[in-house]
């Protein structure tokens, strides 16, 4: 069976490489890999030939909810931006904190952390507050490459931050460990690593402009724009999110997509200038299309990999690695699995891994918290590179993707060390879980 699966894997890799060589996009190349893998698998009846199309279509629905959230969140933010709200916020931050750099950086970091912490998706942080924060960082004299790097790392940390950490939730659900006691094991490292990142990447001021000049250079804001017009849509959104937490049995379940849609409607109603919503939505969706296509195709790829046994082979390779080697390998395996499979990586590798770590006496909750610091790093790695691509998009960085990614290496290494140490010393850190409960 190993040979059979090895051949299927080789066919998939070859199809991907061939498509890339013919200059097809990442999404189309992955699609070719999935179709080729399915066809190769069908030769062995894994899956049966009559089921290949069903597997492809079914797999394309794996991340439907995530796609809906991306779409509605981006349209919501596009409305806020079009109304002049983004420029208004940036202008205010510069006006009040331009000369108090530490506080300005700290505030901007917290602003990025909040949406991701509440929703479990770093991409939501970038879609909701990424653009204004990127502008503010730019006006603080930070070049676009470092801005993109800050956004990527902090947005990733926001996804790992409590109360909602989807990797930890998937692992908890899959290993029957209650999703409780994560507040301190996740909250403390996220805050410390976030502060380190914004100071390391953002402390140096490369700008030559003084505060007055910066304010003059900034885009005009509609005359009637005010704080309540900017804040009201966000208050509605966070209000809906928080309402379910506070009164869970009296609040209907709206889901993030509808919550963003309602907030978007409010933003549209309070906008001081007229917005052509259909045109704006259409342009936004066009911009978002490559990202959405990636999510669709990753789901297909994941389904074919499972049906053919390729996913099992990869999971087997990880689990059967000797312990010392495994800890070293985790540094690479965890981010790469996220880059290839997004949240699927946590299920395929993470669940058996946590059972194994638990069985050798490590503390499962702290180990999950440690590992879930590493997973968001993979959101900067191809083929998906979800948060990485969004960071580049909202920061307006025009250089190559790899030059952006290289800028993140120091925080990346620090986060990796912290995450691995948390796993290794999880048994000694169990007091963090007790203090959280």
């Amino acid at each position: 069976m190993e040979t059979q699966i090895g051949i299927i894997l080789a066919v998939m890799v070859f199809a991907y490489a061939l498509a890339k060589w013919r200059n097809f996009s990442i999404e189309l190349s992955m699609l070719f890999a999935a179709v080729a893998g399915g066809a190769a698998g069908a030769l062995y009846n894994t899956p049966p030939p009559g089921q290949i199309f069903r597997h492809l279509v079914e797999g394309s629905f794996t991340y439907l909810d995530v796609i809906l959230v991306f779409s509605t969140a981006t349209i919501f933010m596009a409305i806020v931006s079009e109304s002049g709200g983004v420029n208004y916020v940036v202008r205010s931050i510069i006006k009040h904190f331009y000369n108090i750099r530490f506080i300005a950086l700290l505030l901007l970091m917290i602003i990025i952390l909040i949406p991701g912490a509440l929703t479990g998706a770093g991409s939501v942080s970038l879609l909701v507050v990424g653009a204004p924060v990127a502008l503010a960082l730019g006006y603080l004299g930070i070049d676009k490459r470092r801005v993109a790097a800050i956004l990527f790392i902090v947005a990733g940390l926001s996804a790992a931050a409590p109360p909602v950490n989807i990797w930890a939730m998937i692992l908890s659900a899959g290993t029957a460990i209650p999703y409780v006691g994560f507040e301190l094991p996740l909250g403390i490292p996220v805050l410390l690593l976030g502060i380190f990142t914004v100071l390391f990447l953002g402390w140096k001021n490369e700008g030559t402009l003084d505060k007055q000049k910066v304010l003059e250079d900034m885009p005009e804001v509609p005359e009637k724009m005010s704080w309540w017009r900017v804040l009201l849509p966000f208050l509605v959104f966070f209000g809906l999110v928080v309402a379910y937490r506070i009164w869970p049995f009296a609040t209907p379940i709206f889901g993030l997509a509808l919550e963003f849609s309602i907030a978007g409607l409010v933003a549209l109603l309070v906008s001081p200038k007229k917005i052509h919503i259909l045109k704006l939505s259409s342009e936004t969706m066009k911009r978002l299309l490559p990202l959405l296509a990636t999510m669709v195709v990753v789901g297909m790829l994941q389904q074919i990999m499972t049906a053919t046994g390729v996913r099992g082979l990869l999971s087997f390779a990880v689990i059967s690695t000797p312990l010392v080697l495994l800890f070293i390998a985790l540094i690479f395996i965890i981010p790469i699995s996220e880059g290839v499979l997004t949240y699927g990586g946590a299920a395929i590798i993470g669940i058996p891994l946590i059972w194994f770590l638990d069985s050798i006496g490590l503390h499962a909750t702290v180990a999950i918290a440690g590992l879930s610091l590493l997973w968001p790093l993979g959101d900067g790695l191809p083929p998906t590179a979800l948060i990485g691509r969004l960071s580049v998009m909202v920061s307006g960085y025009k250089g190559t993707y790899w030059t952006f990614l290289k800028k993140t290496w120091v925080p990346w290494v620090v986060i990796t060390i912290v995450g691995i140490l948390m796993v290794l010393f999880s048994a000694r850190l169990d007091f963090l879980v007790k203090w959280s409960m």
Partner: protein
Amino acid sequence: MIKQMKMSRLWIIKLTLIVFLAAIISLAGYQLYTHRHFQVPLITGPGVTKVVKLSEYSPGIKGTMADTNVFFLEGSEEGGKILILANTHANEPAALLTALLFIENAVVDKGTMIIIPMFNNSAGRNTRPGDGYPLYFEIPTKWGSKKFRMGNRDASPLDQWPDPDVYVHYPDKQLLSFLDVRNTNRTWPGRAKGPLMERVTFGAMEIMRKENVDIAIDIHGAETMFPVTNCIVAPEKSMRIAVMTTLTVKSREHFDSHVEPSPSGFRGLSHREIGDYADTFPFLLEAPIPFLDQPTGPKTVDLLLDGKDPFLLSLSKKGKLFVPYDEEGWSMEKRVGQHCSVTLEIMSQYSKKNPDRTIRISSVPRYADVLKNGVGYYYHDPNKTDKKNIIYN
């Protein structure tokens, strides 16, 4: 002119792709639609006295895909009552096969047996995107084969959607994964007007409260790499009976099924909430199902039925599984046989301790019988069965 030709060529390519895509989606859509609406004939055996809908106990699910059949097998003598739940997770099919084996064969002499074979009916009609499951599996019988839907762990989003960003458990407010809002082993004890799956578990709680059910057994399957596998999960109140059951099946029938304590801090599970919110003694049975393990070969029907996998065998030799595993795998017969014997033994142990609430049944095979004859041996041919004894689900 050249530009126009290029444009029209591009349009032809685009149109061809659209037509091709539409054909693929239609074909796959038809397969998925057929799966969702495929009806399994459930044959009522000599012990079945009535079949009602779960919505009689939880009106909030009436008319939805969550509504499901509840089989009553009432004895001639009054005694204790047992509730058996299967397909709480519809991707752990040994539970359903065990429940049907009871429904088709059991004769109740004393007490009452209540069986819900497709507890999460919506999940039984759902697939698992990303996980490459087969849509159906077939069990060989004396008269051909009996075909079943392969379901999912969670209810279909077609029946309950959207999910919250995080599921807040009722009534403890513990935060659970957003997916667990559709998982009927996280939504206990449920609410009459909560999300659909909370209404399903509420219905079962109502059965236990209104019918004065003594024992509830929730049948599952678990990965060989999961520590809580091949076991009986029991809270404090059920522990004594669980331990006696384990010891008895080990000594008399020579198979292991150890006892795991139900964690008091983990909410929403049947073995925790049933005991806390009703007078019933809950038990959750787990038998190993290699198909659900992550490091396996292709997810085929063969793997589902015989449980043989080379990767798991290799991991077993490295001591990384929580159950003994050899070239024989972990077959469906073994799983169903274990569930039958453990269920019968729990009833027996409970009856010994509570003679006035005895539950006595006959004609149900035990572990060795199922291993010898196979599961399908105990299913009856729907074509030779009186139509009034067939319920489609």
